[in-house]
């Protein structure tokens, strides 16, 4: 049999000859005041709460773990089919299936605390009061370094319109959450708006410490033979490399308008060059989502690849890359 290269758990593959040069690279970054050992995070909804991927590698190596969105009440989510593959991407409509904040605090958080992971708690809700109550219950919890507010939820008090599509509604949620929390707040925005900068400005004015850009892009796929939508929900969120250029544009646009606002870049990150693109566009860190579905080791791999990529170019600090996009003229 061919040689089996056994890689011990917790060790990214590396070549000893390059170890010294790689060691000179400082991958640490600061996101909305939170110090992280590296800029590779998970994307909400693409990592469950951690133990599933910990079967492959020690997940506390990640810069931070953005967990699947937590709601006040437990949710079972939508019926299947919940997923459809599309060119270089996929659509999903899960319906925020999660155990609810109380069960999450009892079961999921202690596991993450035991691992010593840095946790970004993603929260979702149907009303402003829902968001606020979930945020309140997350107070004084060890391991939680930030809260990400998933604003791409239908607002039941406003005809089911998605919070993130309205600067006012988004700001209301952030104001309410800010009253409760003791850690920095990231507002996760959607690209499905006419002017993302106006929504970004509104949530920053409401007290968001940073932004996550972007959530999935609303899409649809139809079975040509049956005439049925590919998803039981009809519409779903498009993710994967297909949306990467849209995400990069959003990060760049917001960073140009609000250069002081920290950004967590998200959308279609697959390789180290994608990470670098997001950093250059203005992100302080990046979230990896759909790629984990294809490559369970994606987070660990990207940390190693980024270190190598920077070392090969003599770049010693992530901060050298953040916002480093140069005009043609």
């Amino acid at each position: 049999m061919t040689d089996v290269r056994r890689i011990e758990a917790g060790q990214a593959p590396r070549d000893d000859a390059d170890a010294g040069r790689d060691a000179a690279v400082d991958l640490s970054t600061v996101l909305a005041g939170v110090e992280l050992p590296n800029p590779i995070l998970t994307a909400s909804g693409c990592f469950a709460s951690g133990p599933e991927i910990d079967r492959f590698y020690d997940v506390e190596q990640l810069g931070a773990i953005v967990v699947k969105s937590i709601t006040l009440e437990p949710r079972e989510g939508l019926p299947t089919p919940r997923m459809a593959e599309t060119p270089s991407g996929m659509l999903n409509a899960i319906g925020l299936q999660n155990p609810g904040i109380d069960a999450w605090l009892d079961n999921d958080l202690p596991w993450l605390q035991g691992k010593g992971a840095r946790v970004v708690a993603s929260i979702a809700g149907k009303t402003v009061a829902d968001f606020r109550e979930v945020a309140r219950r997350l107070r004084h919890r060890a391991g939680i370094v930030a809260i990400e507010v998933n604003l791409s939820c239908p607002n039941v008090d406003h005809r089911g319109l998605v919070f993130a599509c309205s600067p006012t509604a988004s700001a209301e949620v952030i104001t309410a959450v800010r009253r409760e929390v003791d850690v920095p707040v990231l507002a996760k925005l959607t690209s499905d708006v006419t002017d993302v900068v106006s929504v970004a400005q509104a949530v920053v004015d409401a007290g968001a410490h940073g932004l996550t850009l972007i959530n999935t892009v609303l899409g649809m796929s139809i079975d040509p033979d049956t005439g049925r939508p590919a998803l039981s929900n009809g519409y779903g969120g498009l993710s994967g490399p297909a949306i990467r250029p849209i995400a990069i544009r959003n990060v760049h646009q917001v960073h140009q308008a609000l250069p002081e606002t920290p950004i967590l870049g998200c959308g279609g990150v697959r390789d180290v060059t994608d990470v670098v693109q997001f950093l250059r566009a203005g992100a302080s860190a990046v979230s990896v989502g759909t790629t984990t579905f294809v490559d369970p080791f994606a987070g660990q791999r990207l940390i190693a690849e980024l270190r190598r990529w920077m070392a090969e170019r003599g770049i010693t600090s992530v901060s050298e890359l953040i916002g480093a996009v140069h005009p043609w003229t």
Partner: protein
Amino acid sequence: MASRAGTMQGRIGTDDPVQASCEVLARRREGAYWLLSIACPSIAERAKPGQFVNIAVGGFGTLLRRPFSIARVSKQGVAAGTVDVVFDAHGPGTDWLTTVSVHDVVDVVGPLGTPFPLPQRKVACLLVGGGYGVAPLLYLAEELTRKGLRVDMIVGAASQERILSQIEAKRLTASVTFTTDDGSYGVHGRVTDVLEEVVENCHSGVVYACGPNPMLRAVSERCKEMKLPVQVAVEEHMACGIGVCFTCVMPMRQKDGTVRMKRSCIDGPVFNGARIAWEATRFDVGPPLLVEPEEAEAPPEVRPSEADLWGES
């Protein structure tokens, strides 16, 4: 991702899944289906019947891995460390997989999922397979036989050419009953049309099933009526296969009567069929097959002569 054949990434000394670059040892037709045999020692030594592997595929615009039930593993002998899967080409990913050549390298994650639970006491086991769903049941049959248990089988398919591994099924079991939707082989009908009779004749104490979800629903509902334990390996659209995306859920009735969405890739694919809330799924059993009763031929009125029987000599 690792690319050289033989490389693997994962935890050592556990049953946890690994990611491995595997050499293709064989790719051939298996009746109406395809068989892929790959060199995967780290997966072969961890695998159990009912589990699956998730294979990265090429082809235009494909992004996600494709899940395949493990049909056979070889842990000993000259073929040690191989994993076989059987599949039907019905999309760009599986079409691409029919084009790989021997010595090509494929990227595989596995073994994944919860395997079939094995009986803790002596009991006759009935395995019910539909189409290429028979493949993982042959792997299960080997395990059950090794434990000294009696194994009987019902194999169903749309037509004769879509019956998988007839000879293998006969070799591994005490009895096999074949059914086809069009009557081209075995009993004209569906697996559930013969289920009760086979259970009675073979004194089956447990049923294991794998095949299309509507078939699994029908088998589960019949077994529930007969108060017979039933374990089914389901098939649902899967993005990740490793428990993080929540796309492949099945509604499972809990002891307190509530229905919870459970992930087929990590809580399954093997579930207690009687506890699946089938009415909350899109999988209908469908109308029964209309099988025209064959008219009994009238007995000949006169005995044939030697000349009638053998022809003029």
